């Protein structure tokens, strides 16, 4: 039995629902924040995720970071060496989707070539009438960047856990790969 620890950086434009998503995940869907309160800096959420078919788990340290440009520099200092990435946009905002490339560049610069599992999350999937980003488009871009794509609705409690579970699983797989590599060295 092993407990891994992963620092998960939660980024994306302001008001796409990063905090709503992390709070839903933390509370197992019991807590949807109805009123918007902007995150300044970083809010930390810690939750353990069990890996299916094993006694192992991954403890995720979610760094729910401010999306407002003003706070980004301060956030970068807190990120340090991230383990996994959760990149969020709002499916009803084309602008927030286009920003994703920028966010990704920013994070990759921190990682210095380190392999980092990541997911792209299209949030607010309940706003179907106002949708601006098609699933196929987002999916294709995610794939081209080596990210796994998930669509969620924090408001409707839909699929909110999936991105985090997949990150935990990816981190766990990475750990097992590394052990194999190290065993061949000794």
């Amino acid at each position, binding site marked *: 039995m092993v*407990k891994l620890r992963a620092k998960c950086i939660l980024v994306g434009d302001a008001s796409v629902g990063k905090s709503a998503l992390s709070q839903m995940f933390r509370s197992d869907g019991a807590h949807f924040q109805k009123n918007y309160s902007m995150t300044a800096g970083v809010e930390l959420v810690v939750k353990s995720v069990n890996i299916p078919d094993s006694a192992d788990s991954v403890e995720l340290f979610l760094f729910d970071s401010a999306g407002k440009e003003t706070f980004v520099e301060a956030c970068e200092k807190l990120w340090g*060496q991230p*383990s996994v990435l959760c990149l969020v946009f709002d499916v009803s905002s084309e602008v927030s989707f286009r920003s994703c490339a920028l966010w990704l560049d920013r994070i990759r610069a921190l990682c210095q070539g380190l392999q980092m599992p990541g997911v792209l999350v299209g949030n607010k999937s309940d706003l179907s009438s106002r949708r601006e980003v098609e699933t196929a488009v987002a999916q294709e871009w995610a794939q081209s960047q080596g990210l796994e794509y998930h669509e969620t609705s924090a408001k409707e409690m839909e699929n909110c856990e999936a991105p985090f579970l997949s990150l935990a699983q990816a981190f766990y797989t990475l*750990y097992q790969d*590394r*052990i194999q590599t190290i065993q061949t060295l*000794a």
Partner: protein
Amino acid sequence: MIDAALSSSGAQVIVAASSDENYPPDNIINGNTESFWISTGMFPQEFIIRFADAVKMSLVTIHSYNVKNLKIEKSTSSDATDFDVIAQKEFEHTEGNLQANDFSLSGTTATHLRFIITSGYDHFVSVHRQHLVLRSVTVGQSLHLFLFLWPSLVFSSCDWVLAGITPHLAIASFTCLWSLGQPSARFPISDITSSLLSSLMKRLCAPF
């Protein structure tokens, strides 16, 4: 040379920041590079080694993989408090090979050593072996040898010139070695030393 940082010498890993039961921290001090301890994510990572007695160290060697920055702290207390930084180093990335790095500690005394890995070249880092060269033991051994050798050297030789200079040499060399450090408590050298020294001195000075 005795490796005091081995579990067989009574050393223990008393703290490790992370652990996988298949790769326990004890693997660091079993003297084998094939077994290892691996961190399980995030930085910093640390582990603390406690020695059976206070030891005087001259060199620590670390065999590791993907460690980037390592800081070594020491404590001289019996309960692993009040750590002071004694060394810090950025390791080179050695893709496909273990890293081997030496830290020269110029005779620092410690009861505990704390190793803090502040960053890595990967999410997970491993430490395979930690090897410690003790100063007191090497000094103690040479002192031992020296004191056993000198009487035979002096008295097997009939050369009075040699005998004439040996008392000075013996005293000078002894003082020099003594000042390097008290022999470790595990080697009952101090008793041997004092009795040998007095008999040696008596015999050396007899001709004069």
